[in-house]
């Protein structure tokens, strides 16, 4: 969805939200009047029915306008009143129950309305969820102006962002699942306990207007993972943020194959690892089943028992190594064998490490996590571009070819695009290579966030990128990429020559319209060339 529509919608919703609040204030006056009658003991059944109707309406509509707590509380009070409306035969009993309770809850309700409880929900819901995998970053900053300007800056880099003045206001936002937090240092020190109780394992970046080693140590000790001093260098900070997010995602996940002949033990390991967020498969050691499972599941590591009945783990490991594909797959033996000589012998046959049984659950989980993490990092070194983390040239071309084949088989349309930064050589010359690298990374991160998880993104050459959008019409691809160009041009970088921005040219072609993937890439490249000649900064689609 392009930015202008989103802004338009936010603005309209904002107006409606205000109108709703004004009207609700009038309804509160009516409820207050009924509450007064209830306390005085002279409210009648009609009045109770009226309060029920008002509460029912609030319960059904407040959430739509972002007043979630107000809606929830109104629902509770509505249910309380409803029983007496359904059966109003014993009015004096009803009034005695409601009495102070009704008034008290009403006051709470009004508080939620006055607090405008979710001041920032518009930002949150400004993008339909699930369309893009944009990570949500909470900005917790007491100063509204600084907080919201930082938050707006992050949006340009392809994050969703939500500004909140303090930790408590986040706790009142049920359902928000942030991926990272940027927080004012003194707020963090005061509330790190509470924060981590709700958000375990979440990367925290502290910002501060002062800087000393003592302070840095204090923040690190409290659990902060990064520190930035004001004035903030946003490109640098988002780059760091991106690294933290990938690291956290990698560290918390992993694919583990357990090979053991003891079903109970295997089930136990499976539970421990699964509850730690790992993806687990099990196999019983039958040599004929192992390779098919490996090919299909593609684990990061294998945990293997040393002796499974007649089957020897080390022999099985050696058999796996017959296949060049599994030469680098880490294999960790699980065994009661504590004789170091025997262990070494088993390792010599193709294993990587030994875990001696009995092994505690937390030790197992930590070891497996670390192993998976390392295995993934290694794999990335091989297949990913080191600066951007995107697919390397040769791999991305393979992926595009695979998608082209899918198009032909499944008869769907997909798009391929070449992207090139405008006047990039000049950036490197005048702003320095460090700044140039940040620009490249900035575009890589924006693409990662704005495109879907299933889209293929690669670094093609120095400042050239390629993306393939499976099952995506040319018109849709054009909209999405035009929005990327627009947002990218608004990012402000800082280099040795001061602040600057960079624009982006895109050539687009329908991957599915060409007989060979190379032809589609060539067409996109031609379109890119036309865009460069037509003034850069934007998208040109190849005529097909």
């Amino acid at each position, binding site marked *: 969805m392009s930015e202008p*529509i989103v802004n338009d919608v936010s603005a309209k*919703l904002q107006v409606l939200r205000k*109108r*709703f609040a004004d009207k609700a204030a009038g309804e509160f006056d009516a409820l207050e009047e009924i509450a007064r009658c209830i306390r005085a003991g002279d409210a009648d059944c009609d009045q109770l029915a009226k309060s029920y109707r008002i509460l029912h309406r609030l319960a*059904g*509509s407040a959430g*739509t*306008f972002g007043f979630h707590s107000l809606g929830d509380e109104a629902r509770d009070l509505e249910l309380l009143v409803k029983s007496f409306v359904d059966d109003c035969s014993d009015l004096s009993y009803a009034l005695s129950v409601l009495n102070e309770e009704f008034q008290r809850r009403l006051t709470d309700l009004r508080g939620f309305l006055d607090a405008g409880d979710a001041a920032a929900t518009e930002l949150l*819901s400004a993008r339909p*969820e699930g369309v893009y995998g944009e990570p949500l970053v909470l900005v917790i900053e007491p100063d509204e102006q600084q907080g919201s300007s930082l938050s707006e800056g992050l949006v340009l880099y392809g994050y969703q962002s939500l500004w909140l003045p303090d930790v408590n206001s986040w706790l009142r936002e049920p359902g928000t699942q942030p991926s990272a937090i940027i927080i004012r240092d003194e707020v963090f020190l005061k509330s790190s306990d509470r924060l981590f109780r709700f958000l375990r394992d979440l990367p925290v970046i502290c910002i501060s207007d002062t800087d000393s080693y003592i302070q840095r140590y204090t923040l690190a000790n409290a659990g902060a993972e990064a520190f930035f001093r004001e004035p903030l260098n946003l490109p640098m900070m988002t780059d760091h943020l991106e690294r933290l997010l990938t690291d956290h995602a990698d560290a918390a996940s992993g694919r583990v194959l357990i090979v053991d002949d003891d079903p109970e033990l295997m089930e136990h390991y499976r539970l421990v690892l699964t509850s730690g967020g790992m993806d687990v498969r099990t196999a019983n050691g039958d040599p004929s089943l192992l390779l098919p499972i490996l090919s299909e599941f593609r684990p990061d590591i294998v945990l293997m028992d040393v002796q499974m009945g007649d089957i020897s783990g080390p022999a099985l490991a050696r058999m796996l190594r017959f296949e060049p594909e599994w030469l680098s797959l880490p294999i960790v033996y699980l065994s009661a064998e504590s004789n170091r000589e025997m262990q070494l012998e088993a390792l010599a046959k193709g294993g990587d490490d030994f875990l001696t049984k009995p092994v505690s659950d937390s030790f197992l989980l930590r070891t497996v996590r670390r192993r998976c993490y390392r295995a993934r990092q290694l794999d990335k070194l091989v297949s990913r571009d080191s600066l951007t983390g995107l697919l390397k040239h040769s791999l991305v071309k393979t992926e595009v070819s695979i998608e082209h084949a899918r198009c032909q088989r499944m008869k769907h349309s997909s798009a391929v695009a070449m992207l090139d930064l405008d006047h990039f050589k000049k950036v490197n010359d005048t702003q320095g290579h460090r700044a140039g690298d940040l620009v490249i990374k900035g575009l890589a991160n924006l693409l990662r966030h704005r495109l879907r998880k299933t889209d293929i993104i690669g670094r093609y050459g120095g400042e050239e990128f390629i993306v393939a959008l499976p099952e995506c019409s040319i018109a849709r691809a054009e909209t999405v990429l035009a929005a990327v160009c627009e947002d990218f041009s608004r990012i402000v970088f800082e280099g040795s020559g001061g602040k600057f921005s960079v624009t982006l040219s895109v050539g687009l072609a329908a991957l599915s319209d060409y007989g060979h993937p190379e032809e589609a890439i060539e067409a996109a490249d031609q379109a890119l060339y036309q865009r460069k000649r037509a003034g850069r900064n934007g998208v040109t689609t190849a005529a097909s």
Partner: protein
Amino acid sequence: MEQNELLKRILLVEDEEDIRAVAEVALETVGGFNLKACASGQEALESITDFAPQLVILDVMMPGMDGPETLRAIRKLSDFTRTPAIFMTAKVQSDEIASYLAEGALSVIPKPFDPMTLADRIQEIWRSS
């Protein structure tokens, strides 16, 4: 059965003015539908023939004619005996939902709804109908 026809015209019957306004944003601006919003069952019956909606969305609790009554009246019009309908309600006990579905509704959307995702939800229901 799956709907192949593209959903364009939606008739909304909702007595609350602010919900009608937010539904216009949610369905016209965000969703790209052509929406006709009516304030009562009576108004809906008067304009349904001219507008010829492909889908009708009705609030359940309305003064005068409520949602289910309105739907029954719409079903009596020969052009709209089978027009798909969705109820919106702030009450979502499962037995109530069952009774609305028994009235011939495709689905029930609980209130409050999120204006940013309402259109997607309706498309989803439409496609699977």
